[in-house]
């Protein structure tokens, strides 16, 4: 192994020692927390770069981070086109339709305890199934363009959100319900003023799980057929051409999109459920 590899390992050791020192010295400071996490991420990248260069790993097996950055810079318009096709058209539209449908169905189901008792176990069961498997079927029905990807995403996000929303709507305690009854609140009033707000923490939990599922569904569905753009299409064709830098560039974009979507939902959650114990005191 060359000097670059050893240098990277040395850097990693030094940074980890610094991390341990910082973590013991300032256990409760927020900036230090962020710093420690960032440092850890940077050391991983440096270690990756150093080992790939130091051990002369072929770029066909694992490209170095610098190669990936170069591939991103060289292919910006291409990556943007794939992003629009897969994330904005496929994943996001499916996510909105699926989550919206799940919320509406949950509210409808909530009025009937019979349906609730029947639908919850079935929903829980379906949520554990390998739903990605329906991707080939939906691609056959809805064609190769983004509509079939959106359909896969709808089915994938529907059940986790449904199960969480139904559980959330049932989460009000008897005391609050009695209070609404003493005010002779109608069904609609108590739904909007008590039960929907009480269901929000559960709903956001489901929405967060669904963000990752949406991206997975949209990308995997493209493996079964797609127009000549899209992240899943690019990944599978670039693997065939052994252009792994471009594949990793797509993965970086997918990771950024996934983290961004997750962060967006988390921000909305923070604003909408500021009153909940899990959000207080931060």
């Amino acid at each position: 192994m060359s000097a670059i590899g050893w240098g990277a390992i040395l850097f990693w050791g030094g940074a980890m020692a610094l991390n341990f020192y910082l973590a013991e010295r300032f256990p409760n400071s927020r900036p230090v927390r962020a710093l420690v996490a960032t440092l850890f991420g940077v050391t991983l990248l440096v270690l990756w770069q150093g080992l790939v260069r130091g051990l002369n790993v072929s770029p066909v097996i694992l490209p170095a981070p610098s190669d990936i950055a170069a591939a991103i810079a060289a292919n910006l318009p291409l990556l943007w086109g794939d992003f629009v096709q897969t994330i904005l058209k496929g994943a996001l539209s499916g996510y909105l339709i699926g989550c919206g449908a799940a919320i509406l169905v949950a509210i409808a189901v909530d009025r009937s305890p019979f349906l609730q008792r029947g639908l919850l176990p079935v929903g829980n069961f379906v949520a554990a199934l390998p739903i990605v498997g329906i991707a080939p079927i939906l691609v056959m029905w809805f064609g190769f363009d983004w509509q079939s990807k959106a359909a896969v995403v709808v089915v994938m996000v529907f059940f986790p959100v449904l199960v969480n929303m139904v559980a959330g709507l049932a989460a009000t305690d008897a005391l609050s319900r009695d209070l609404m009854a003493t005010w002779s609140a109608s069904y609609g009033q108590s739904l909007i003023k008590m039960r929907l707000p009480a269901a929000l923490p559960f709903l956001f939990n489901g929405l967060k799980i669904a963000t990752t599922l949406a991206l997975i569904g949209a990308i995997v569905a493209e493996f079964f057929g797609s127009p000549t753009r899209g992240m899943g299409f690019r990944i599978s064709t670039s693997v065939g051409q052994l252009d792994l830098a471009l594949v990793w560039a797509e993965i970086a974009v997918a990771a950024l999109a996934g983290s961004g979507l997750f962060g967006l939902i988390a921000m909305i959650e923070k604003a909408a459920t500021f009153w909940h114990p899990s959000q207080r005191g931060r």
Partner: protein
Amino acid sequence: MRSILPILAVLSAIIALWYGAAVLLNKQWTYDQAARAGVTVTTAQMLADTMMQERPVLPAPHQVAKGLWDGFTGQKITSKKSLVLHSWITFSATMAGFGLGTAAGILLAVGIVHSRAMDMSVMPWAIASQTIPILAIAPMVIVVLASLGIKGLIPKAIIAAYLSFFPVLVGMVKGLRAPDAMQLDLLRTYNASGAETFWKLRLPSSMPYLFASLKVGVAAALVGTIVAELPAGASQGLGARLLSGSYYGQTIQIWSALFAAAILAAGLVLIVGLIEGRVLKRMGMVR
């Protein structure tokens, strides 16, 4: 009885909807065929035909059931059409990956609970790593490992392990931190060492959390294995069965593979649940 009835009602509603959808989606083909042959079909004939097409848009439930039955019992186990063979391939990779992922998750959780630096550096990245649609990388991992000469079960197991390690990690961290201050203080008054605290208090109290996340993890491992079987090259496994069905338009084959996967998933979760019941009962922790 009280809980079975609603579930049965929902299930039969789903099956009824399925039959309705099968008629709606398949009738176009029936009418096209009839128009090409120059005959008119009555509604009754149309209904009968939509139930037994060779390559329906949506197979009727009984066709899928027949496909499943044929796949599981109608073939020799070594035959390429046997769902037993494909399920076994998928199952073994799932189990290997699940074992790997669970071990990694538990080890990391132990590290995180005992070292603040590990907690502060690893945890945020473990969470961030799950916002990455990791399944998208699956085909690449398979191809790259194949070029290194690693084929068969191991690449699939790695992807399954990656998917199942996160639920185990999160559940285990929560579980190892579950003992409250009073219990920890009690052990301190006994002058218990760190290892003793771990084996006698933290590990036992983490069991309910561990099993809850094992159920999620085993389902995730199965999804990972199936997606890992999708890229071309894999010829065995439920994922490969799905892919070849979609290439040749064999819808009944796709649906049978899908239901075989569902049965496998349900079976795995059920087994973990049974072990959970046994273990928790032995430990006196049955809710």
